């Protein structure tokens, strides 16, 4: 098969869609005014802002005044969690429930809150990467001020029962925030139907631009500010609005939502074909639930084949992927997500994440299915750990000689 470039790291970021770029261009060239300015060029920009807020709200199932534009998903996570914590503290409620495998934007914010006197319960996820609403219920205490659970996981793609968790939180009178950065634009998300009080999203995960995101905050919940300054975003987020980014994000979200079902169907088939094909590699295993996962997410471990080496050899074949291996980060610890599934270190180090988007083709899948088994073999041929498995010096941890 002819060499090609396959970008399959769409959970990291996506290519921008033409529609998003076209929505942005006039904001640089023509509508470059400051929405706070009273003159015509400023007011044109203001119109874009108002229009985008309405369109974003329509796609998320909320009112325009419940949308706040931010610099991205991390900022949105920080602001939602801090706001709920502050509200709780005022009522003497200083307990927060979350999960062990949240994004660091959530986990590190919770760590800071702990230092400020909050107590945090991190629920263990099951080995399929899921938690249940009943587990959330059991963790909620009279002094719980916030439950924050990610909609879909960024590494293993598992989709939590958000609607049920939201229902439990409503019953118990606790604010519910969800980091929906990986979900919005990929699966149906509707804040009203999902019983969500606060939500974070990021444009560049659904073919929008980087550096822009949004948060939804249910009317009546007072949001506190992270960035002080002007009165933008109704005084909740200072700084001149990123009009071009907001216009690009809105266009990208609309495009993603218009094609949501067809994309989901197509990507699910491609995902399952990849999983089935890669499972034929001896001593491999899928990480995370096989069904309740994002349509484009494949995360597998290959015994004895270290993740960073897999990425680099795959990259040499033109395939762009990521891994939960420690070596891809600055620390020696493998991904906290994979560890939260109860995987042994040596399996977590040997993971590969393939994340497809609608920009991928069946030919991309064919190409990966041809090249990746060779990549795994190449890494194993150098691996002393693989030798130890083969010679029986240590027992295999991932089952089956030829799974699937």
């Amino acid at each position, binding site marked *: 098969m002819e060499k090609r470039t396959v970008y399959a790291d769409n959970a990291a970021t996506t290519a921008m869609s033409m529609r998003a770029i076209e929505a942005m261009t006039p904001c640089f060239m023509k509508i470059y005014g400051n929405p706070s300015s009273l003159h015509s060029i400023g007011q044109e920009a203001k119109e874009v802002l108002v229009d985008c807020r309405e369109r974003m709200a329509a796609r998320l199932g909320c009112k325009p005044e419940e949308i706040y534009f931010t610099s991205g998903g991390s900022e949105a996570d920080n602001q939602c969690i801090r706001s709920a914590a502050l509200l709780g503290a005022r009522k003497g409620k200083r307990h927060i429930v979350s999960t062990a495998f949240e994004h660091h934007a959530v986990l590190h914010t919770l760590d800071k809150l702990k230092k400020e006197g909050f107590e945090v319960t991190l629920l263990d996820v099951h080995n399929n990467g899921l938690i249940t609403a009943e587990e959330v219920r059991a963790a909620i205490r009279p002094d719980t001020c916030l439950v924050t659970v990610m909609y879909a996981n960024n590494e293993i793609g598992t989709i939590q029962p958000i609607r049920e968790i939201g229902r439990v939180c409503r019953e118990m009178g606790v604010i519910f925030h969800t980091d929906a950065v990986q979900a919005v634009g990929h699966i149906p998300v509707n804040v009203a139907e999902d019983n969500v009080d606060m939500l974070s999203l990021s444009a560049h995960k659904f073919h929008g631009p980087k550096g822009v995101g949004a948060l939804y905050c249910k009317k009546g919940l007072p949001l506190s500010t992270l960035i002080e300054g002007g009165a933008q975003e109704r005084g909740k987020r200072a700084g001149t609005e990123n009009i071009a980014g907001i216009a690009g994000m809105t266009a990208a979200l609309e495009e993603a939502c218009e094609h949501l079902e067809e994309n989901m169907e197509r990507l699910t088939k491609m995902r399952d074909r990849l999983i089935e094909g890669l499972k034929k590699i001896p001593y491999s295993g899928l990480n995370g639930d096989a069904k309740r996962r994002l349509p484009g997410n494949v995360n597998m471990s290959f015994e004895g084949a270290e993740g*960073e080496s897999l990425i680099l050899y795959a990259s040499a074949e033109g395939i762009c992927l990521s891994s939960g291996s420690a070596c891809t980060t*600055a620390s*020696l610890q493998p991904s906290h997500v994979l560890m939260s599934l109860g995987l042994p*270190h*040596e399996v977590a*180090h040997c993971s590969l994440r393939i994340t497809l988007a609608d920009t991928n083709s069946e030919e991309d899948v064919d190409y990966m299915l041809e090249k990746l088994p060779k990549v795994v073999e190449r890494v194993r041929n150098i*691996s002393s750990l693989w*030798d130890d498995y083969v010679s029986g010096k240590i027992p295999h941890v991932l089952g089956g000689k030829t799974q699937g």
Partner: protein
Amino acid sequence: MALYSEKVMDHFTNPRNVGVIEDADGVGEVGNAVCGDIMKIYLKIKDGIIEDVKFKTFGCGSAIASSSMATEMIKGKPLSQALELTNKAVAEALDGLPAHKMHCSVLAEEAIRAAIKDYYDKNGIEYDKSQFPEPHDEEEHPTEE
């Protein structure tokens, strides 16, 4: 700038001396699966000279490149010279490693020492124990934060 130098990528993509020596005179293994790096070095020694050297490494790109470079640097050399090989020399020969990957070059140095020590032990050769400190614990390696 890319994470790795061209030299590192060359040694990672085309690693030299990969393999196992079945009747090796000395074998050294350092690292562990928990930390994600294991290096195993096999030596064939004749008249105090490293006639052949092979390695197998479970680890990242810089671990494989460090193994490849280190084995190349000691092949055909007397043991005394191989014992002088430092992790810094390996890293320099690779045109540098990122700071958080320096421990990979340390593993290479330690694996070679462990293999030579194994050879000495097997053959009842006297040696200066101070030349063979215990391999580092992974915990000692620099981590962020």
